[in-house]
């Protein structure tokens, strides 16, 4: 009986741990990620659980994350802009078994931070920012990426 309780407690504890696989992040943190002068090539993908074209292109980022050790992939969820409860994001990460690092952007009033990512960004998603910290080159694209697009963008900042 005791063992059962312990097992149960352990299971609950683990699932609680498992239920928060994404940290909240502020715009300043994002700026720091792409503002350094050394390190891996940064790939930031802006997405949300409600965005169908975002979900369609996610496997491309997952594949990049799995195959390229010289690249750091971050999936930035902007779900909080519409829904204060992040549970949907946690469930999504769990269901899709996402391996890339997911962050939840915790900002209000997009008009104050969209330009800080890129001045050309209208705010529509999906959108992707690629920054080569070594040489400072960056590319921003505001569209759904297809097979091969990411590689082309990454090569263009080499």
């Amino acid at each position: 009986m005791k063992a059962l309780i312990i097992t149960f407690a352990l299971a609950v504890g683990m699932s609680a741990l498992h239920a928060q696989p994404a940290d909240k992040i502020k715009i300043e943190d994002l700026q720091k990620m792409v503002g350094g002068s050394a390190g891996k090539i940064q790939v930031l993908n802006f997405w949300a659980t409600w965005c169908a074209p975002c979900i369609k292109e996610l496997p491309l980022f997952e594949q990049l994350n799995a195959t390229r050790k010289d690249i750091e992939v971050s999936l930035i969820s902007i779900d909080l802009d519409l829904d204060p409860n992040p549970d949907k994001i946690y469930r999504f990460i769990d269901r899709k078994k996402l391996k890339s690092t997911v962050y939840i952007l915790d900002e209000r009033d997009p008009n104050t931070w969209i330009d800080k990512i890129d001045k050309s960004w209208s705010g529509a998603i999906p959108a992707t920012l690629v920054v080569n910290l070594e040489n400072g080159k960056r590319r921003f694209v505001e569209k759904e990426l297809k097979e091969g697009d990411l590689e082309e963008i990454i090569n263009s900042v080499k």
Partner: protein
Amino acid sequence: MNALKSLFAIALIAVMTAGAPVKPGYEVGDSAMDFKLKNYDGKMVSMADYKEAKGYIVIFNCNTCPYSKAYDSRIIALNKKYASKGFPVITINPNDPGLSPGDSFDEMKSQAKRNKYDFPYLVDETQDVARTYGATNTPHVYVLDKVSESNLKVVYIGAIDDNSRNADAVTKRYVEDAVDALMQSKSVPTTKTKAIGCTIKWKNS
């Protein structure tokens, strides 16, 4: 004269879409073109139909985007507040129903009836109007000042307000501020804003 005007509009579209950069679109201060698009009730609607209008609140919008849903009651309220003052709301759905079946004409009809729209909900089948205006998201607002019959000046482009998820927590009402300023012949305080939104579902070119 009207035929001449339409011809001019068509020529303008042709000029603006042929070989134009990917994202041309209007800037604040530009003169916006009128359109003639099919409403959910089957009738054709142009801004010129509104003889008494002093301006327009043109909103590119759709059925399916969660932001459009979040703003639906606020858009209805905008028309209730401003149509009688000479600034009617006109909504336009540019989404390709092939890519977004929930935005088909039939779905538009159901939505407009269900939510009792008392303003047009037009279909931009060719997507030419959205492209000419430079709309990117839904909802994406263009406030126009009718300087004259032939000059519909763009005075505001962007979001409805600064809080998508909670209408009660809004601190900046961009569209209302713009229209209020026009009514008082003052300059529009904020002329351009950005917001998170669903990208317009463009036909595959």
